[in-house]
C-alpha cells in the first residue's frame, strides 16, 4: 500500500484551483477595504446609503463575495470528491469524508426536516433563521452523530483506538499499515507515540464527551435550579446562606478542586461517592416536587405520578450510586442496573459540583426578577404554594436564558473534561478522550504535532459549535 497524501489524485486539479481562488479573494478583500475607506465619507447621507453602494467599491464587494463562495465550493469539492471516487483517490481528506458518510446523511436529514417544519418548532425552528445558529447546530450535530454512530454501532472508527501496531509509532498522517491491504488500511491521521491510530482515538473520544458533558450539565442545572429558585424567591437568610456556599465553591480555583477530588486516594476514601449520593438526589427531588406542586389538587393522579416517578428515578438513582464492595451498596447486586466506574463517577461529580454554583447564581437572579411580575402575584393571591409558583410560574418563563446558558455550559463542561484529561486526572491513562490525548501528544509536540493537534481541533470545533448555537439561540429568542 502506498502512503496517502492529503488530497490525493484530486489534489492535482483542486489544489491549484484553491490557490487561485484564495489569491483572488485576498486581492478582492484588500481592494474592498481600501475603496471602502475612501468611499466612507461620501455615503453618509441617509438617502444615499439607501441607494446602495455602486461603482468600484460595490464591484469589489461583489468580488469578495464571489471568490469567498468559490473557495467554499472547492472545499466542498474535496469532500464530495472523496465520496464519489474510489478509496484513496481523494487522499486523506477524501477518505475522511467517505468515512463520515453516515454522519453526512444524518446531518442532511436533520437539516432537511428541521427547515421544512421550522415554523412549527418554536425556538428550535427559529434557529434555522440564523446563519450563526445553523453553523453552530451543524458543528454540534456533527459530533453528536459521530459519537452516536461510534459508540452505538462502531461505525466511524477505522482501527481499534486502544491497539498499538508496531512500526506506526509517531508516523505521519496517511501512513499505511504494514501488511494490511484493502480499504481503511491506513492510519489516516497518523500514529501517536504508542503507535495507536490518532483518527480512531479522536472519534472514540467524542463518544466519551457526548456521554458525560450534557448529562453532567443537566445535573448541574437540576442542582442549581432546585437551590437557586428558593434562594431568589424567598430571599432573606436562606438566600444569604446558599449564596455564601455558592461563593465558597466559586472562590476555589477549579483545578485545585479537581486535584483534591479527582485522585485515586480520594476515590478510595469514598468522599466523591458520598457527594454523588447527595448530588444525584436533586433530580429526584426536583421531579417529585414539580409533579406534586402541579397535581396536589387532584390527589389520585398525584399519587400515581409521584409514585411512578419515585419508583423509576429511585431505582436509577440507587443503581447509579450503589456499588458492590464499597460502603455504598444499598441495592442487592441483582437489582443493580449498571455500574459506573469510580473514575467516571468522580469526574462526573466534580464537574457537576463546579458548575452548579454558577447555575445557582443565574437561576437566583432570574427568580428575583420574575417574582415581581403580576402573574406571580396573581398566583399568590389565589393561594398557590411556594413550590408551584417557583416551578410552574417562574421557571417556565426563565427558560430562554437558561436554554442559552445550557448550551454554553455544555461547551464549558467539555473544556473542563479536557482540563481533567490534560492533567491526567480521573479517566484511565489510555482513555481516548480528547484531554488525555492532548496531554499525551504535547510531550512530543515540537516534533510530531499531529497527535496533539487532532484532538485539539476536535475539541475546539465542538465547543465553538456549542457557543455559536447558544449565540444563535440568544439572538433568535430576543427577536420579536
Amino acid at each position: 500500500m502506498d502512503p496517502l497524501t492529503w488530497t490525493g489524485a484530486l489534489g492535482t486539479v483542486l489544489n491549484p484551483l484553491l490557490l487561485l481562488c484564495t489569491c483572488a479573494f485576498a486581492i478582492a478583500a484588500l481592494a474592498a477595504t481600501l475603496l471602502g475607506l475612501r468611499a466612507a465619507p461620501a455615503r453618509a447621507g441617509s438617502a444615499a446609503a439607501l441607494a446602495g453602494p455602486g461603482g468600484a467599491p460595490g464591484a469589489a464587494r461583489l468580488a469578495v463575495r464571489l471568490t469567498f463562495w468559490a473557495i467554499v465550493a472547492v472545499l466542498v469539492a474535496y469532500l464530495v470528491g472523496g465520496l464519489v471516487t474510489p478509496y484513496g483517490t481523494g487522499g486523506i481528506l477524501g477518505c475522511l469524508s467517505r468515512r463520515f458518510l453516515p454522519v453526512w446523511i444524518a446531518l442532511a436529514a436533520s437539516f432537511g426536516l428541521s427547515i421544512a417544519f421550522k415554523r412549527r418548532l418554536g425556538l428550535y425552528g427559529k434557529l434555522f433563521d440564523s446563519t450563526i445558529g445553523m453553523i453552530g447546530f451543524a458543528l454540534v450535530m456533527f459530533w453528536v452523530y459521530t459519537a452516536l454512530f461510534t459508540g452505538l454501532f462502531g461505525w466511524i472508527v477505522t482501527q481499534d483506538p486502544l491497539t498499538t501496531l508496531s512500526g506506526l509509532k509517531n508516523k505521519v498522517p496517511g501512513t499505511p499499515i504494514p501488511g494490511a491491504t484493502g480499504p481503511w488500511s491506513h492510519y489516516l491521521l497518523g500514529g501517536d507515540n504508542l503507535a495507536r491510530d490518532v483518527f480512531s482515538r479522536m472519534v472514540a473520544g467524542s463518544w466519551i464527551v457526548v456521554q458525560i458533558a450534557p448529562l453532567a450539565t443537566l445535573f448541574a442545572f437540576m442542582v442549581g435550579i432546585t437551590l437557586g429558585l428558593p434562594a431568589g424567591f424567598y430571599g432573606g437568610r436562606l438566600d444569604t446562606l446558599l449564596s455564601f456556599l455558592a461563593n465558597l465553591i466559586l472562590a476555589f480555583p477549579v483545578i485545585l478542586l479537581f486535584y483534591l477530588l479527582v485522585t485515586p486516594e480520594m476515590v478510595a476514601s469514598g468522599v466523591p461517592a458520598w457527594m454523588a449520593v447527595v448530588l444525584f438526589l436533586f433530580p429526584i427531588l426536583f421531579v417529585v416536587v414539580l409533579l406534586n406542586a402541579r397535581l396536589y389538587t387532584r390527589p389520585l393522579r398525584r399519587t400515581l405520578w409521584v409514585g411512578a416517578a419515585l419508583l423509576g428515578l429511585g431505582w436509577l438513582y440507587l443503581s447509579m450510586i450503589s456499588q458492590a464492595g464499597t460502603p455504598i451498596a444499598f441495592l442487592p447486586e441483582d437489582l443493580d442496573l449498571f455500574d459506573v466506574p469510580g473514575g467516571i463517577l468522580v469526574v462526573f461529580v466534580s464537574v457537576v459540583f463546579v458548575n452548579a454554583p454558577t447555575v445557582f447564581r443565574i437561576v437566583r437572579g432570574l427568580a428575583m426578577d420574575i417574582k415581581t411580575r403580576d402573574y406571580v402575584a396573581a398566583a399568590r393571591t389565589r393561594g398557590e404554594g411556594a413550590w408551584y409558583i417557583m416551578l410552574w410560574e417562574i421557571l417556565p418563563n426563565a427558560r430562554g436564558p437558561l436554554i442559552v446558558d445550557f448550551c454554553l455550559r455544555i461547551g464549558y463542561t467539555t473544556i473542563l473534561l479536557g482540563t481533567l484529561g490534560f492533567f491526567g486526572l480521573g479517566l484511565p491513562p489510555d482513555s481516548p478522550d480528547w484531554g488525555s490525548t492532548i496531554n499525551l501528544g504535547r510531550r512530543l509536540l515540537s516534533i510530531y504535532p499531529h497527535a496533539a493537534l487532532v484532538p485539539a481541533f476536535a475539541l475546539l470545533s465542538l465547543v465553538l459549535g456549542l457557543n455559536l448555537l447558544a449565540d444563535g439561540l440568544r439572538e433568535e429568542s430576543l427577536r420579536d
Partner: protein
Amino acid sequence: MTATDQPILEIDDLSISFFTRDGEIPAVMNFSARVMPGQALGLVGESGCGKSTVALGVMQDLGTNGRVTGGAIRFRGRDLTQMTPKELRAIRGSEIAMIYQEPMASLNPAMRIEQQLIEVPMIHEGLGRAEARARALELVGDVRLPDPERILRAYPHQLSGGQQQRIVIAMALMSKPALLILDEPTTALDVTVEAAVIDLLRELGTKYGTSMLFISHNLGLVLETCDQICVMYSGEAVERGQIADVFDKMRHPYTQALFRSIPLPGANKESRPLVPIPGNFPLPHERPPGCNFGPRCDYFAEGRCDASKIAMDRVPDEALHESRCLRWDEIDWDAPPQTAVHKPKTEIGEVVLEVRDLQKYYEVSSGALGGGAARVVKANESLSFVAHESETLAIVGESGCGKSTLAKVLMGLEVATRGGVAMAGQEIADTPIQSRGTKTIADLQMIFQNPFDTLNPSMTIGRQIIRALEIFGVGRTGAERRERMLELLDLVKLPRAFAARKPRQLSGGQKQRVGIARAFAGDARIVIADEPVSALDVSVQAAVSDLLMDIQREKKTTLLFISHDLSIVRYLADRVLVMYLGHVVEIGTTEQIFAPPYHPYTEALLSAVPIADTSIKKKHIVLEGEVPSAMDPPPGCPFQTRCRWKSKVPGNRCETELPPLRTLATGHQSLCWLDEAERAVMEPVIQTAAP
C-alpha cells in the same frame, strides 16, 4: 406672504415603513400636517397608530429598520429627508428638540445634570463652559426647580420623576429651538405633577415662542395645550383641524367613537354609559381594504368604504378642517349614540368588608451597600372604611399614597402592623394568604394593572383559568372544570376558542378580560381591581370597565377600584376614598367628593385631571413641591407641605397636629382642620359652561 405665515414644520404625504424579516410593515401612510410658528399641534391616537413614528421621522431617527418611503418633511422649507447626517446634527437639539415619555430613561445616569445641559449650546452655538453654565442656571430656574446650583451638581437619580422631566424640558430649551416635539411627556407622571409640567410647558412655549408637536393619547391634555389637532388611526391621519372644530364638530366616525368612549363629566354608568368601540385595532399586516376604520365603524357602507383607499377631504367653511371619511357629509353628527337600554342601578347591600384602624409599616435597610440603620416606611396609617355588597368603592391617590399596600394587606400578601380587617365577619388582617381557607381566598380576589404581566406567558389561557378552578375546589372532574372555564370565558365575552391560546396571541384588553375571568373563578364576593384599565387604550378602557360593571350587577360583587384617574372614578364609583401619604383624607359618595366642600387635596386632584370637553371650565390649581417621603412624613397634617388653604387655619395647627377625620355630611368625612365657614366658600372646581 410674511415670514410668520410660513409653517415651521410641514409634513407632506409622508410614508414610513419598517423592514423586518417578515417584509415591509407600513407604520405611517400618506400623513400630512403643519405646525405654524408659535403654535402647538396635537397628535392623538391609540398605541400603535404611528404617532411616535411620525415624531421620530421628523427627527430622522428611525433606527436601522425604519425608512421614509415617500413624501417630504420640510422644516423651515428644507426637506429633512434629504439632509446629510452633518446637517441633521446641526438642526437636532438647536432647532428641533424632543422630549420623551420616560424622564429617567432619557437622562444619562452617569453624567451630572450640568454636563448634560451645557453640552447643548456648547455644540451648537460654540459657547464657552461658563456662558453655557450661566444659561443652564437660568433655564433650571425657568423650569421652576428650587436651588438650581444644587440641581446642576446632581445626578439624575437624585431627582424625583417630576424634577427629571423638568430637567429634560430645560435641556430641550437650552438652545432655544424653534420646534419642540413632545412624545407623551407626562404619561409617566402623577396627575398633580402632570398638571404642573403642562402648566410650565404652556408658559415656556409662550415665553420662547416655541412651536410644539404634542403627541398624546389623552384628548384632555391636547385640549389644554394645543391649537390644532390631528387624530391618527392605524398609520393614517383621519381628521385634522382647529381644536375647537374637531372637539365640537368632529367629522370622522373614529373621532366621534373616541369621544363617546371616554368618561366625560356628563357620563353615567346607569343612564349615559360609555360606548366602547367594537372590535380590535388592526395590526399593520391585517389592515382592511379601503377605510382602515371600516370594520369597526357604525356608518360603514359596504361596497363604498371598502372599495379603495380614501383620501383626506376638506370640510368647507372651516379653517383647515379635513376628514378621511367618504360619508362625512351624509352622517348626522348630532344624533345621540344608540345605546342599549338603561341599565338598572344596583342595590347596595350589607357591609361585607370592614377595615378598622389599619396600619402597615415596613422596615427597609437603607443604603445599597448594606448596613445602615433600618428605616421605617409608614405605608398606611390608621385606615378605616367599610364596603358594601354590590358597591363600587374607588380608592384614589397618587403613587406612593399607600393604595397598593392596602391592597396587599387585604389580599394577605402582607400582614397588618396594627388594626383589623373583617370580611363577612371573619377577621383576616393577621392571616397571611398561606393560612387563609380556600373559601376566604376565593371570595377575595384581585385584578392587576398591567395586562402584559398579569398572565403567565408560557401557559394557555384555559389552563390558567382551570388552575384557579382547581385551587378553589370548583368542580369535581376535569370535564366539569373545563365546562366552567368555558362559561367564564363567555362571562368576560371572549370566544371559547381562546382557551387554547397563549397570552402573547391576545391584545391588552383581551388579556385583561382573562384576568377578570380568573378573578371570578371562585365566585369572588370582593374584587380588588388595581388600576385595571389604566394601561389600556381609551377605546378598550370603556369596554373593560363596562364588563366589570355588568359582572358586578350579575354577581353582586363588591368592587374596590384602585385608580388615579378621577374621570373613570366619577363614572364608575358609588363611593370614593381619597388617600394621601398613607392617610384617608376624604371619603364619601361620588357626588359628595366631586362637589364642594372639598378636602384641599381632592380639590387639587380634581383640578389637575385634564378633561376633553370644550364646554368645561376648570379652576386652575397647581400644587407646588413634591409628595413627602413615606419614610419621613411631615408633622401634623400629611398634606400641609403643599396645601393652599393652610393659612386659613389659625394658630399653625396644620403643622403640629394631625387633623381629625370629621364628618361633614352623612357618609362624608374629611381629614382637615378647615372650619365650616371656610369650607362654605369653596367653589366647584369643574363647571359646565352654559350650552
